[in-house]
């Protein structure tokens, strides 16, 4: 029988709430009294959307620019991490020992190094070199000078910042791919052996067996953990502010540095992350309910 949860508050609950409120109030007084902090909440909306008198229209300002960049990075590195993670997951279940060992090494290295260190290593050893080798800098500047770049700007924002965006995407995707890979491996291994045997017995190649029989079923099973991982990715994206990718955390740092609105800026940013991530988790929950007919 299912345990029925209490719906009503009783006196101990009120006591706990009172203690928490008192504690919050104490902190509040310390900030406003002892620190003599000058709250300037009214200035925050301007840093989200700015009205330009000369041009007579709205412009996105620091915080919203950062949020949009964060969303772009999350989407692109999410897709890239899924692709890399799928390859990694398949490699982890491969028959070939060398392939399995490579995949395992990659995974263990990533899992046992702090994310910040991983980000720096990937940035300096991988994406910087890659971007230099592909001469992406010149290419992006070339596009930035062209006339009709609305499509480019929609997908990548300011094209002069394109190399930085891409290195952020690559770094984040490489980091998350290890976790995605583990999720996919678990999914692949959860598919009964009989499925693979049936696929093989009608003469399918290993590739087709993976593509048409194992992966479609595995993906369906791992959708919930994958969507959780995507939410983690959105939150982890704040780490790449360290390599000067102009996403939400970086923009907030800029804002704080120039305006000294420490509390307002960070609380606003926290709220933006919260709304984004909580919204995603509600969305995914809804999708799952629909799926489980």
């Amino acid at each position, binding site marked *: 029988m299912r345990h029925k949860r209490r719906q009503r508050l009783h006196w101990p609950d009120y006591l706990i709430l009172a203690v928490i409120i008192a504690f919050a109030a104490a902190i509040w007084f310390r900030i406003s009294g002892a620190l003599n902090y000058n709250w300037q909440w009214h200035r925050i909306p301007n840093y989200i959307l700015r009205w330009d008198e000369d041009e007579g229209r709205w412009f996105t300002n620091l915080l919203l620019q950062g949020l949009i960049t964060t969303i772009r990075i999350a989407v692109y590195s999410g897709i890239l991490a899924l692709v890399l993670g799928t390859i990694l997951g398949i490699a982890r279940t491969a028959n070939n020992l060398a392939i399995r060992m490579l995949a395992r090494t990659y995974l263990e290295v990533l899992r046992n190094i702090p994310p910040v260190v991983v980000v720096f290593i990937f940035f300096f050893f991988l994406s910087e070199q890659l971007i230099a080798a592909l001469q992406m800098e010149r290419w992006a500047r070339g596009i930035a000078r062209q006339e009709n770049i609305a499509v480019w700007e929609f997908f990548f924002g300011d094209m002069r910042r394109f190399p930085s965006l891409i290195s952020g995407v690559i770094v984040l995707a490489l980091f998350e791919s290890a976790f995605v890979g583990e999720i996919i491996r678990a999914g692949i291994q959860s598919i009964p052996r*009989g499925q693979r*045997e*049936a*696929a093989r*017995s*009608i*003469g399918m*190649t290993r590739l087709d067996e993976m593509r*048409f029989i194992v992966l*479609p079923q595995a993906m369906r099973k791992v959708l919930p953990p994958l969507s959780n991982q995507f939410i983690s990715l959105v939150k982890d994206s704040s780490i790449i502010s360290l390599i000067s990718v102009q996403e939400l955390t970086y923009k907030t740092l800029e804002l704080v540095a120039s305006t000294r609105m420490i509390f307002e800026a960070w609380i606003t940013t926290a709220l933006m992350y919260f709304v984004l991530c909580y919204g995603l988790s509600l969305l995914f929950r809804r999708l799952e309910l629909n799926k489980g007919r």
Partner: protein
Amino acid sequence: MPFGEGWLFAAFPLEPRVTLQHEVRKDMVSPGAPPIISMRNVAKFFGPFQALTDINFSVRQGERVVICGPSGSGKSTLIRCLNRLEEHDEGTITIDGIELGDDTKDIRAVRQEVGMVFQQFNLFPHLTVLENLTIGPIRVRKMDKPAAEVLARTYLDRVRIPEQADKYPSQLSGGQQQRVAIARSLCMEPRIMLFDEPTSALDPEMISEVLDVMVELADSGMTMVCVTHEMGFARRVADTMVFMEAGRIVETTPPAQFFTNPKSKRARLFLDQILEH
């Protein structure tokens, strides 16, 4: 003497139609033809455990072989070696002129000629019945989709569930699922069909609908190797009974002799055990 004349017919009453067709079918097995399946001195190990020992076994075109024996005697392992779901460690296995080895092309070629039906059906749960049937022809035989669907519907008709084409396997009963699995194998138009305890996972009332389909298939001249405990079915369709114990083939006899007067003591004991209730 536990086996009096007619005891089997009392236990497993046969329809006359089937007996008649069975007699007709006999002539299709050409005695002089080279075997389509041949196993020579095959051995198979699972670690230190020897699952198959010195297996010599051959099947001619159109022949129907039923393999029986106590559980753990290596029946499933033997049949799974025939399409290399298990790799044999010693000896040679030749299917339709192709020797099974490490060559993946050869293995795939053999698998296209050899259909297999599993105890647990192993239908693809994410595909509809029709897609389960067409995926082999489309992906392996590179047939185009409309042609594959026509083919699939023909075989769904043959296993008598044409109306279930657009359902998912989980929406079907066990018996229907197993018939879909048979149709899926047939869609590859194999020359040999392997059955690995096809009715063991079924509720009793669904066994006959699957056996009926298998009898029909046998009557059509398909070469069949079946691992089954359904002795009524074996009696109806088998040309040869193979009895295994502890990884060895103990005897290979025509069913008439096997059921009335088995050569080995162990086979007699086995028959006593499975037929006594």
